[in-house]
C-alpha cells in the first residue's frame, strides 16, 4: 500500500511540472504587455509620447521591479546570429528590435554598432548647449524612436541636414546608412546554427517558483498588492460555495440513485429520469441567469423577490453566529444550486448504472433468494460493490465544479477566486490569473491522487503492488 501511495505521488510530479510550465509560458507570453499594464496602473501620466527619457527610465524601473530583465529559463536556446549582449537589454522594445534585426540581417556586429551609434549620439546631443531647444528635443525623440524601429527615418535625414554640429551630423549619416543596410538585407544562414547559453538560477522561471512560496514579492500589476493576499481573501468564498455544492451533490445523488434503482421501472422513476436528462442539457449559466432574473428582483412582481441579487451579504457588528450563517446561506443558495445540479445528474446517472450492473450478479440474486428485502439487498450488498466507480468520479468532478464556480461567481457577483480570475483577465493582471490557474491545478491533482489512494484503500482487489 505505501509503495502504491509513493508511486502515485511520484506520478503527480510530472503533472504538476507540466501545469507549472504551462502557466509560466502563458504568464511569460508577452512581457511587453505586462510592463505596459504595470506602468499604466502605477506610473500614471508617464506616456511615451511626452518625455521619452523619463518614459524609458520608468520603463526600466518597472522591468526590474517585475524581474523581467532576467532570462526566461535555466538555459537559452538561440542562434549564432543573435546579439551576444541581448540578455542585458532592459528596455523591452529595444530588445525586440535587436532580436528582429539580428534575425533578418544575421550580422550581430552591425546590430551592436547600430545601437552603439544611437547611444553615442544621445550622449552627444545631451551635451549640446548652443542648439535650439526644439531641435534638440526632436532629435532626442527621433533617436529614442530609432531604438524601437530601425526602418529608414526621413525625419532623421531632415535633421541631419540642418544640424550645425559636424560630429553629430556625420554620425547621423552613419546611422542612416546602417538603417538602409538593415532594410536591404536578407536572413543569413548563420541563423540556422543553434547556440545554447546557460543562465543558472537567475531566471524568470526560477523567480516564479521562489515567489510562489515567498508570497511578498509576487505582486498584482493593478494595485501592487501581493497576489497571495488577494487570492487568500477570495479563496474562502470559493471554498465555501464549492464545499457546499460538493456536499449537496454527493448527498443528493447518493440518495437519489438508491431511490431510483429501488423504484426502477415505475412511472415516477421514469419521469425523474427524463427530467434529469432535460436538466442536464440546460446550461447552468442560463438557469442561473433566469433564476436571478425572476426570483431576485421585483421586476416580475414583488411576490417573486425571494433572493438577494447576488453578492455575499453584509454582516453587521453585533450579529451572532446563526445570523451570519443565515445571511450567507440566503446568498449562497442560488449559486450552490446552479453549480451542483449538473453534477447531481451526472453522479446519479453513473451510480444508478453501476448499481444496475452490480445487482445482476449472482451474490445479489442469492441475497434476494435468502429473503432479504430489496432495500437491504441494495444497501448492504450491491452498494458496497457499486460505490467504487463513484469514488473515482468524485475526484474527476472537482475540476468541473471549479470551472462551474467561475461562471457562477461572475454571474452572482461573489468575490471568490473565479471572479478574481475573471477580473484579472479583464484588467490584464497576469500574475493573479496564472497563480489562480496554478492553485486550482494543484488542488485538482491533489484531489485525484487522494481519490486514487482512497479507492485503493477501500477496494483491496485493486492491484497496489508493483
Amino acid at each position, binding site marked *: 500500500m505505501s509503495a502504491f501511495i509513493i508511486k502515485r505521488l511520484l*506520478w503527480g510530479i*510530472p*503533472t504538476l511540472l*507540466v*501545469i507549472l510550465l*504551462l502557466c509560466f509560458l*502563458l504568464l511569460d*507570453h*508577452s512581457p511587453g504587455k505586462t510592463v505596459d499594464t504595470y506602468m499604466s496602473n502605477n506610473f500614471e501620466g508617464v506616456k511615451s509620447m511626452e518625455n521619452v527619457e523619463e518614459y524609458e527610465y520608468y520603463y526600466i524601473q518597472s522591468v526590474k521591479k517585475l524581474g523581467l530583465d532576467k532570462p526566461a529559463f535555466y538555459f537559452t*536556446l538561440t*542562434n549564432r546570429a543573435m546579439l551576444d549582449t541581448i540578455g542585458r537589454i532592459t528596455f523591452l522594445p529595444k530588445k525586440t528590435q535587436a*532580436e528582429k534585426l539580428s*534575425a*533578418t540581417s544575421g550580422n550581430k556586429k552591425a546590430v551592436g554598432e547600430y545601437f552603439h551609434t544611437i547611444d553615442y549620439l544621445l550622449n552627444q546631443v545631451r551635451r549640446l548647449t548652443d542648439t535650439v531647444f526644439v531641435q534638440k528635443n526632436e532629435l532626442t525623440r527621433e533617436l529614442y524612436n530609432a531604438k524601437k524601429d530601425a526602418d529608414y527615418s526621413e525625419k532623421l535625414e531632415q535633421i541631419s541636414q540642418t544640424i550645425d554640429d559636424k560630429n553629430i551630423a556625420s554620425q547621423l549619416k552613419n546611422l542612416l546608412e546602417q538603417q538602409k543596410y538593415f532594410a536591404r538585407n536578407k*536572413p543569413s*544562414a548563420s*541563423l*540556422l546554427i*543553434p547556440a545554447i547559453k546557460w543562465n543558472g538560477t537567475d531566471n524568470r522561471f526560477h523567480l516564479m517558483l521562489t515567489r510562489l512560496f515567498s508570497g511578498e514579492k509576487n505582486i498584482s500589476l493593478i494595485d501592487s498588492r501581493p497576489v497571495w493576499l488577494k487570492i487568500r481573501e477570495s479563496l474562502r468564498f470559493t471554498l465555501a460555495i464549492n464545499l457546499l455544492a460538493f456536499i449537496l451533490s454527493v448527498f443528493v445523488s447518493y440518495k437519489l440513485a438508491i431511490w431510483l434503482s429501488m423504484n426502477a421501472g415505475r412511472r415516477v422513476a421514469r419521469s425523474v429520469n427524463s427530467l434529469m*436528462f*432535460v436538466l442536464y*442539457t*440546460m*446550461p447552468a*449559466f*442560463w438557469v442561473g*441567469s*433566469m433564476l*436571478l*432574473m*425572476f426570483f431576485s*428582483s421585483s*421586476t*416580475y412582481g414583488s411576490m417573486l423577490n425571494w433572493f438577494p441579487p447576488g453578492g455575499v451579504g453584509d454582516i453587521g457588528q453585533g450579529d451572532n453566529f446563526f445570523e451570519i450563517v443565515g445571511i450567507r446561506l440566503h446568498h449562497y443558495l442560488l449559486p450552490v444550486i446552479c453549480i451542483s445540479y449538473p453534477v447531481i445528474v*451526472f453522479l446519479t446517472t*453513473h451510480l444508478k*448504472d453501476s448499481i444496475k450492473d452490480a445487482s445482476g450478479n449472482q451474490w445479489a440474486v442469492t441475497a434476494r433468494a435468502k429473503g432479504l428485502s430489496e432495500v437491504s439487498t441494495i444497501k448492504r450488498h450491491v452498494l458496497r460493490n457499486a460505490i467504487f466507480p463513484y469514488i473515482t468520479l468524485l475526484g*474527476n*468532478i472537482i*475540476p*468541473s465544479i*471549479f*470551472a462551474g464556480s*467561475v*461562471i457562477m461567481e*461572475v454571474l452572482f457577483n461573489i468575490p471568490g477566486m473565479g471572479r478574481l*480570475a*475573471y477580473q484579472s*483577465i479583464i484588467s*490584464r493582471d*497576469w500574475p493573479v*490569473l*496564472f497563480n*489562480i*490557474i496554478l492553485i*486550482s*491545478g494543484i488542488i*485538482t*491533482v491533489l484531489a*485525484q491522487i487522494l481519490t486514487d489512494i482512497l479507492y485503493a484503500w477501500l477496494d483491496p482487489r485493486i492491484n497496489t503492488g508493483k
Partner: protein
Amino acid sequence: MNKQAITFKSMPFNMKVAVGFISLVLLFAIAGRFIANDVPIYYSHKDWKGFPAMNKTSFLAFKQKNEDVEPDFQILPLIPYSATSIDYKHSLSKPGQDVGSRHLLGTDTFNRDVLAGIIYGSRTALLIGILSNILAVIFGLFLGSLSGYYSSVGVVTGRQNFIFLLMIEILLGYGLLYNPYVSVYIYNTQVRLLLFFILTILSVYMLLRPQRKNFRLDIDLLITKSVEIFQSVPGLLLLLGISAVTGTMDVVKLTLLVSLLRWPGITRLVRGEVIKVRQSQFIESAKSLGVTDWRVIAKHILPNITRQIIVAFAFGVASSILLEASLSFLGLGLPPDQVTWGMLLSQSRTNPAAWWLAIFPGLMISLLILACYTVGNYLNNRTGETSSKEEII
C-alpha cells in the same frame, strides 16, 4: 451489433424531433442570410438585377445613387433585419410590442433584432461545435488507435530508426517552431504548426518499424500519461487564460482552443474501443496473413468502432457548443460585432427586465444540446452494448 441501416421512419419520436431541430439549425447556419437580411433576396430593376443577399456592396451602391426607385420585382426575406443591422427606433423592445416593426423576438441593447441574431448565431455555434470535434476526432483517432493497438505490447522498432526519428523531431521543432530563419519565409504561425504536425505524423509513419536491432517502445504509457496530465489541468480556466493572452478571438482560434480540451477524452475512448476490438479473431487472422499494423488499424479496427466515435462526436458537439456559449456569456469569446447566442444571453445580465434576451437564446442552446444528446443516446443504444459514459462530461 445491430448493422441495420438507420432510416428516418424507423426512428422513435424524440429522435425525429431531434433530427428535425438539428436540420433547422443547419438550415439557419447555411441559409441564414436568405432568411434574415436587411436587403432583398432577389432584386430586379432595369439598371440593376441580381441577388443582393449574396453580395451586398454593389446593391447598396446602386441604392445610394438612386434612392427612391421602385423595383420591378423583388423577393424580400422573411425577417427584414440582418444580425448586425441597427434599428435606431427600437431599443430593447418586447416581442410583438411594435407590430409594424416586425421584431418577432424583440431587440437587444444595441437595437439589433434578436431573431436575426439567433439565426446568425447558429452558424457560429455549429461551426465551432462541429469543426473543433472533427479536429479532436482526427487527433484522438491517431493517438488512441496507436495507444490501444500497442497497449501492453509496445511498438517493436529499430534502434537506429528511433534515434533518427528523435533527431528529425528535434530538427523539426527547432526549425519550424523556434528558429526565426524559417519564420521569415513562412510567416504564418498556424501554417508552421500544421506543417510540423504533418511532418511529425509522416516521419512516425515512416520510421516506427522493425530493423535488425530492435527494442520495445511503450507508446501506450506515453500517450495515456500525457492524456492524464492534460485532463488534470482545469480546462475552462486554462481556456480563459489562453484566450486572454492571445487577444482578439476569431472562429479559427476558438475552434483550436475548444479542440484542445476535447482531444484527451476522445483519445481515451478510442483507446478503450481499440483494445476491445483488438482481441477479436479476425484481427489475429489478418495479422497472421502478414497484413501490416497500419493496415490492420485502418482497414480492420477503425471500421468497427465508427459507431462509438460518432456517438462521442455527438456528445462532443454538445459540450463544445456549451463551452463556446459560456465563453461568450462571460464576454471572452468572439468580439461583440459577431452575434452569438451566449452574447445575446449575457445582455440579460444587465437588463433584468428583458426576459426575451434570456429565454430565447438560452432555449436555442439548450435545445441544440438536447438534440445532440438525443442523437448520441439513440446511436449509443443501437450499438448494443453501451460504451463507457466518460465522454458525456
